[in-house]
């Protein structure tokens, strides 16, 4: 069976997206990408340094990958739009992850500003993947304004707390006709598998890999978990029951 993720007409080979912040060395980025099999890699434009090749984070993303700049640091729609345009001018392609954060304590996204930026940038031909708090109404509007996918958070960025928003994400998966990519909060491979079993189109992981004792080993583990979770989703997991199924049913005596 051909199970390929399709975003804006582009076929994506891996359902694990990788973030590039927090690594102890940029050299770990290509190794982690390869170990995980990831194809979509996000890089903060604020870190991209075209003047200094050796320290330029974007130069460490393998060429076969889709580079998805993100707007980290944007505090409103206007800043996100400016960052996205700068990224395109800098040669980072036309994919962009919109990240608008006005709260430095929890790093929760500002859905309203994110929506505004998404509308503007989709109108300019960007492939826009907005990072949001999982809110059904906002996600529906994202569809209307031309987002290519929706990226709800599992829990706050970098918190490694897992799928705390599971029920809300489940609703988005059921109701939104775009790929739902769980971004932020996934702390372990089992949680990535859980998101995939739920029907997420992909997951984006950064902190859990970058800050692991062995980032490359952890990248591989996440790659396998995402694949396993997807296979489980496709195979259809069995019904979960609160009680054991009785072997002597009470109504077994009734015959047609």
């Amino acid at each position, binding site marked *: 069976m051909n199970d390929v993720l399709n975003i804006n007409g582009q076929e994506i080979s891996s359902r694990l997206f990788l973030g590039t912040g927090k690594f102890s060395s940029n050299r770990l980025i290509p190794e982690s990408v390869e170990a995980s099999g990831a194809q979509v890699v996000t890089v903060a434009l604020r*870190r991209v340094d075209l003047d200094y090749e050796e320290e330029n984070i974007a130069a460490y993303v393998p060429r076969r990958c889709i580079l998805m700049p993100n707007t980290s640091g944007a505090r409103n729609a206007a800043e996100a739009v400016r*960052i996205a345009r700068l990224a395109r001018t800098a040669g980072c392609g036309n994919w962009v992850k919109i990240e608008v954060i006005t709260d430095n304590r929890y790093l929760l996204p500002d859905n309203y500003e994110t929506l505004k930026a998404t509308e503007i940038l989709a109108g300019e031909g960007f492939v826009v993947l907005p990072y949001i708090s999982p809110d059904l109404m906002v996600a529906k509007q994202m569809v209307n304004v031309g987002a290519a996918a929706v990226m709800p958070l599992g829990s706050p960025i970098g*918190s490694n707390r897992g799928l705390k928003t599971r029920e809300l994400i489940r609703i988005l998966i059921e109701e939104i006709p775009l790929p739902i990519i769980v971004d932020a909060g996934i702390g372990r491979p089992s949680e990535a598998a859980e998101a995939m079993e739920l029907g997420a189109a992909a997951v984006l992981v950064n902190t859990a890999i970058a*800050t692991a004792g062995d980032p490359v080993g952890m990248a591989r583990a996440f790659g396998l978990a995402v694949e396993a979770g997807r296979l489980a989703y496709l195979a259809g997991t069995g019904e979960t029951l609160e009680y054991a199924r009785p072997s002597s049913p009470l109504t077994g005596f009734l015959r047609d």
Partner: protein
Amino acid sequence: MSYYEERSKYNGFNFDSFFNNLTDDVIRKIIARNRLSVLDYLALLSPRAELFLEEMAQRAQRLTVQHFGRVIFLYTPMYLANYCVNQCLYCGFHVHNRLERKKLTLPEVEREAKIIAATGLKHILVLTGESRQQSPVSYIKECVEELKKHFTSISIEIYALEEAEYAELISAGVDGLTIYQEIYDEEEYARFHPAGPKSNYRFRLEAPERACRTGIRTVNVGALLGLGGWRAEAFFTGLHADYLQSRFPDVEVSISPPRIRPHLGGFQPEFDVSDKNLVQYMLAFRLFMPRGGITISTRERAELRDRLVKLGATKMSAGSCTAVGGRSNQESTAQFEISDERSVKEMAEMLYAQGYQPVYKDWQLI
């Protein structure tokens, strides 16, 4: 409510009595807590908490890696001018100190900028003394226009400004403000700043708020350690950072714990602040504000800075020089002596050796 009022709530607070009532059990519980109150923070600054530095360090290290990654942001200071009308007892640029006063011309700014930019650094902190005649806002703005060509992030460490002046510099390209209150004890502040515009305690204390209101991206506050008792000063610095973060959630807030260094004029610190004290301060702050930045300058010696990488530090200066135009002209007098004279490259090598990434660029003028 301004921070002045917030801070005033603690006037007359008996720190010693608070410290004396703490038990080991209380300290242990605080260290394990997810969200610390301001008094929890103060408890971790206590003499009793000194017994728990290793436990604090383990947790602080985990929190720092989780929130910032294994990275240290690098920047370097650039002194534009040393004209100063203030009489800060502890400062080498004191109005009555005899030193060659100097202010960089724009071509000199360009020359210094090129020397710094060649090291790969993208974040610059520009400093001046306080002289509205010699280094007015218009002059600083002109320098910023020049520096924008070489750097992607420009912070200022200059005299306290009015809100409209901050707005002017922000629109010119400044995105960060560093301003130290020097000493949060208001009476002692008056003694250390006997004359000049800087003697206005409240105007300086509220400078970060004014900058935040006008859209500054980062603020860095601090007390100059050694002027007052460090525990109370560290407390009020943390309280200030927390105040700013709560009211301006979109601003990146950080603190500096600078210790007084030798300089022209020979001021001797009145309070000793040991390495152990400095580390306790950093750890307590990290547990109190897990996402707050901690900036460590070259005031600290190399061996200690190497250790502080894993004790909560997030940002360090490198290749520093505290004299006006000191990178192209060796004759100029420094504001204070630096302790870590390593180049940017040497700092980067040290960080890599510790399993940390030096980050040269973390913002982009937009």
